[in-house]
């Protein structure tokens, strides 16, 4: 079996002619824990969006598991996305549903049973430290709380791949440490984890693989690296 994720000569030019990624070649094996670093605007989010099919390459190919995401048929896209848990940089919570419902939604899309939902959702909310906010709507939460709901939703259906875009930007260092520990646990249980982050201290401390982008170009890729931008 090949790597879980493969970027082959990926270039992304947005409609306004902004080139976000240039000739990216990258492989990520099943079970890896990878940090994506780089300055603001370097292309980290764009890279992640191509994994779960929110954006598509202008040229090149993106292969995830057995899917060629760069030319996946629209019908198949939901099935790809379900197998990936995503923590969005801007959270993307459904504004008029409770925290519980937001997290449950990621289970509902997989046609999960009522029982599974009732068991799994509170457990994940507990894990992310926001169980007491279950019945709040997102606009009743603090920034950091919203971020943790997004993380809970990403984890709830035990994805084979977790993609987290700046998952601790709104969290205090203590809570952030807890979240990174959680990500490490998830990774230990076999989930591949990719995290775009600016949390220098955490990256330096955890010594995982670090992929660095600069102006859309893959600048560095170290096995037990430290933070670089």
């Amino acid at each position: 079996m090949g790597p879980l994720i493969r970027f082959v000569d990926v270039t992304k030019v947005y409609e306004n002619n902004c080139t976000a990624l240039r000739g990216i070649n990258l492989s990520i094996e099943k079970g890896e824990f990878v940090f994506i670093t780089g300055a603001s605007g370097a292309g980290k989010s764009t890279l992640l969006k191509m994994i779960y099919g929110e954006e598509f390459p202008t040229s090149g190919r993106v292969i995830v598991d057995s899917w060629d995401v760069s030319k996946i048929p629209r019908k198949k896209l939901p099935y790809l996305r379900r197998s990936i848990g995503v923590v969005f940089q801007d959270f993307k919570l459904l504004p008029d549903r409770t925290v519980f419902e937001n997290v449950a939604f990621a289970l509902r899309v997989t046609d999960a049973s009522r029982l599974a939902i009732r068991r799994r959702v509170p457990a994940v909310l507990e894990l992310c430290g926001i169980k007491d906010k279950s019945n709040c709507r997102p606009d009743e939460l603090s920034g950091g709380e919203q971020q943790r709901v997004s993380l809970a939703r990403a984890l709830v259906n035990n994805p084979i791949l977790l993609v987290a875009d700046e998952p601790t930007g709104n969290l205090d260092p203590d809570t952030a440490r807890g979240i990174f520990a959680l990500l490490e646990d998830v990774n230990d249980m076999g989930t591949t984890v990719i995290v775009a982050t600016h949390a220098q201290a955490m990256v330096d401390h955890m010594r995982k693989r670090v992929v660095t982008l600069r102006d859309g170009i893959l600048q560095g890729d170290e096995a037990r690296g430290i933070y670089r931008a």
Partner: protein
Amino acid sequence: MRSSTWAYMAGEALASLRRNRFMTIASITTVMLCLLVLGAVYTFTCNVAKLAEVAEAQVEIRAYLSPKVDEKALRAIQEQLKQIPGIQSFEYISKEKALERMKQQFGDKEGLLDGIDKINPLPASFEIKVAEPSMLSGVAETVKALSGIDEVDYQKELVDKLLLVTRTMRFGSVLVVVGLGVVTIFLIANTIRLTVYARRKEIAIMKLVGATDSLVRIPLVLEGVLLGVVGGIAAGLINNVVYAYVFKTVSSSMPFIPLVLPQAVNGKVLAITAGAGIVIGMVGSVVSMRRFLRI
């Protein structure tokens, strides 16, 4: 999909109507008002058709008998008239009856016509009603050919005018109902599009989390159907009540105006408004969602 997913989608449609109370109220009133107007115009149209029909039913052929026709010949003519296809009914007007009618036409001044009594120059005749105004000329020809019939008269010009008017009325009202139907579709679909548009970000989020098109679409379509059905039934019922009232009022104060019975039209109106509500609500939401699902 498992049954709990279906239950979720149904519940979701209801919950969404509750959560977006503002949009729900706005769209139900829109659906209701549009279909109210459509229903009212349809009812009006039915009455126009009825009026046209009644007016056309007034049209008759008058066949004057030759003075030589005796009792037996008269009976023979009656028998023959019964055979002619296209004749709905006929009535025999004797000389005496003709005179009496003429006198009535001149109102109170019967005395003035007293002198005419002894002479009575008026001929006996048949008043013949045909089933279809378009058959008039054919029937008139046939009747004229009967022996004992002197002359046939059916105010051709007046009848032609009448037929032109009633035909135009019928055509016009079909046009109006169709036109208004199109307007209604646009208005309701527009409103539904605006409510879907307002939720395009939510739709995008659901898709990004891995929802299939159906899981996003079905609750929204159910919502559209619910909006349509509630608005449509409300419009239909209001129409029914108002028309029943109008019918009661008009037929008691103006019994000479022929109105369609509420029983004959109310059911259809309710069916039309409810049906249109459902169909437009459903199709409207399916169509307006399409572009927002491409994510």
